[in-house]
């Protein structure tokens, strides 16, 4: 089923992605009707709270829900003109770690405790390069370890994950993900478990490697600072849905969704008076088993009453061109609220 639009399709295009988990407590609607695209050489930031569906989305791209018998994935995922949702397990497996790779959040638990760091990278290289000798794979691995800035790579090759420091461990994970020159790299909160000073180094490293390899990068994070630093485009997710999408500069300078305002307001900033309190988004994230009727954000939205009853009954659609938002508030009203009520406090 080759597409007639070959050549015009973005490198990665996700259309109407829906991921559901059937659990004993009910159906978890983890991601609903999400669509987005990433081109080669570009970075997409996906932002949202825990449980907003950002990790589930990225695991779906890699086809990692396939081994969970209770997971149902629907929609389309096109990677370089190949559809992945309907592809066979074997076809997706061959892409995983090869054309598309992932860096995980907590490198200590993401590494196997009983295999050396080197052995784990060698294994990932050889599964995609049949016929490569162990020695060649070892040389390649040591090159990669050196490339991501690990000193004494020959020595560290034979060490275990627990013998690495947090930052070095995440560098090794990056080397593991990059060993096959992936064209799509998904980084799931790659700096969350790290010291602030190390965070910056890791982000720089990812950016440098992206420049070098020209890969498409999806950066999943709850840290808006990271997105501001790296992303070309931003998705804001809430309750399993994309609620705002657009170029990073637009989303930061002219955010249109009250939830995005809330995220910006809860960001600590050095240029603000220390006596000013942060303004967190009030309330708690919604249950994905029992999403609120209408707009999922309305129970926490300070402006939900300003548009009649639509917030409580209708699910807002993601509307707009390059910079799209799913909110019932009229555009002018939103602009006014942002500039008059929100922006002065940011």
């Amino acid at each position, binding site marked *: 089923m080759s597409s007639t639009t070959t050549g015009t399709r973005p490198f990665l295009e996700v259309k109407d992605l829906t991921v559901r988990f059937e659990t004993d407590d009910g159906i978890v609607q983890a991601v609903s009707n999400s669509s987005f695209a990433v081109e080669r050489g570009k970075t997409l930031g996906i932002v949202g709270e825990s449980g907003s569906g950002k990790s589930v989305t990225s695991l779906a791209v890699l086809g990692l829900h396939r081994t969970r018998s209770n997971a149902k994935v629907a929609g389309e995922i096109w990677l370089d003109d190949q559809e992945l949702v309907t592809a066979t397990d074997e076809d997706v497996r061959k892409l995983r770690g090869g054309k598309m*790779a992932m860096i995980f959040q907590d490198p200590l638990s993401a590494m196997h405790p009983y295999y050396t760091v080197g052995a784990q990278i060698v*294994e990932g290289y050889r599964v995609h390069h049949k016929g490569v000798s162990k020695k060649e794979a070892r040389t390649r691995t040591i090159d990669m370890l050196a490339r991501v800035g690990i000193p004494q790579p020959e020595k560290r090759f034979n060490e275990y994950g627990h013998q690495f420091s947090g930052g070095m461990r995440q560098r090794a994970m990056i080397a593991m993900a990059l060993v096959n020159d992936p064209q799509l790299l998904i980084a799931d909160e790659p700096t969350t478990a790290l010291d602030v000073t190390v965070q910056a180094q890791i982000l720089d490293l990812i950016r440098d490697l992206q420049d070098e390899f020209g890969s498409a990068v999806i950066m999943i994070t709850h840290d808006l600072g990271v997105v501001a630093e790296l992303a070309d485009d931003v998705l804001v997710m809430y309750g399993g849905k994309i609620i705002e999408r657009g170029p990073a500069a637009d989303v930061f300078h002219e955010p249109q969704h009250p939830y995005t305002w809330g995220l910006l307001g809860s960001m600590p900033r050095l240029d603000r008076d220390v006596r000013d309190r942060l303004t967190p988004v009030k309330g708690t994230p919604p249950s994905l088993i029992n999403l609120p009727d209408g707009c999922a954000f309305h129970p926490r939205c300070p402006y939900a009453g300003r548009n009649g009853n639509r917030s409580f009954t209708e699910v807002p659609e993601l509307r707009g061109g390059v910079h799209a938002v799913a909110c019932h508030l009229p555009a002018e009203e939103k602009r006014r609220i942002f500039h008059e009520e929100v922006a002065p406090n940011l």
Partner: protein
Amino acid sequence: MLSYLIRRIVNAVITLLVVTMVTFGIFFAVPTITGSDPALLYIGKTADQASLDGIRTKLGLDDPIPVQYGKFIKGLVAGRDYASGNDVTHCDAPCLGYSFKTEQEVTPLLLSDIPVTLSLALGAAVLWVLIGVATGVLSALRRGSFLDRAAMTGALAGVSLPIYFTGQLALLIFIHWLGWLPDTAYTPFLENPASWFTGLILPWVTLAFLFAATYARLTRANMLETLNEDYIRTARSKGLTERTVIGKHGLRAVLTPLVTIFGLDFGTLLAGAILTEQVFNLRGLGYQALTAIRQNDLPVILGVTLLAAIFIVVINLIVDLLYSVIDPRVRLG
């Protein structure tokens, strides 16, 4: 590493010394204190005073208990002489004394039982590890399926049914009704490997059924837990085949904790599978122990206990050393 090893060996020796002290105390000292006489146990109730006195002198039963214990330890380390007048009997190290009943030396008696128990334990261990781990892995991968339920029901039966029930049942079916196997018996492997095998297969299977059940349940639980680990997700994200993900990354993590349990089980079994040996009429250490207890044969009981302790202490040491090899996070020292 070397200092760790030395420390562990010293510890092992101390443990064994304590075991001898306690067992010696229970079996020799307590009867003396409560007024029942080990010499009487040795010679029988009809003995006259003269021969009782002779035995007391020969076995040193008139000495204070610490001296008796000292002589016992000396016998273990250097051998000892039992003397009554001109009648001197030398017992080579490691000397565990003489059986009260058969007057045989205890050490060779026990050594001759080891091959039987070792054969039984080894064969059963191979079976139960293979069957238990395979069943556990399959059950975990097909959780909730018919196979999983059947295997776990079987495992529950294995854990709950006592060996004298399953053993008797196996004897009844395979030997008396179907006649597929000869009566269970121990033939030395070097004498006739085929008879060794056919004579032991039923006890192996019965014993393995009991242990495999535990291992299947442990493996299943460990595997289910391991499959949720982040490093399994990492392995999949690298594009490894499911066979590698489960057979290599998964199994490696599942088997490591099993080593500890296996060491304990195997050590205990080497000390004598009393019930199994009894049911299948195999004359190993367990059988010896049971006979000795029935007959109040103190030196044999003491010997079996000490041997059992040695097995468990040594196997535990091996397991701990092995663990540092298979789990790189464990540091010795």
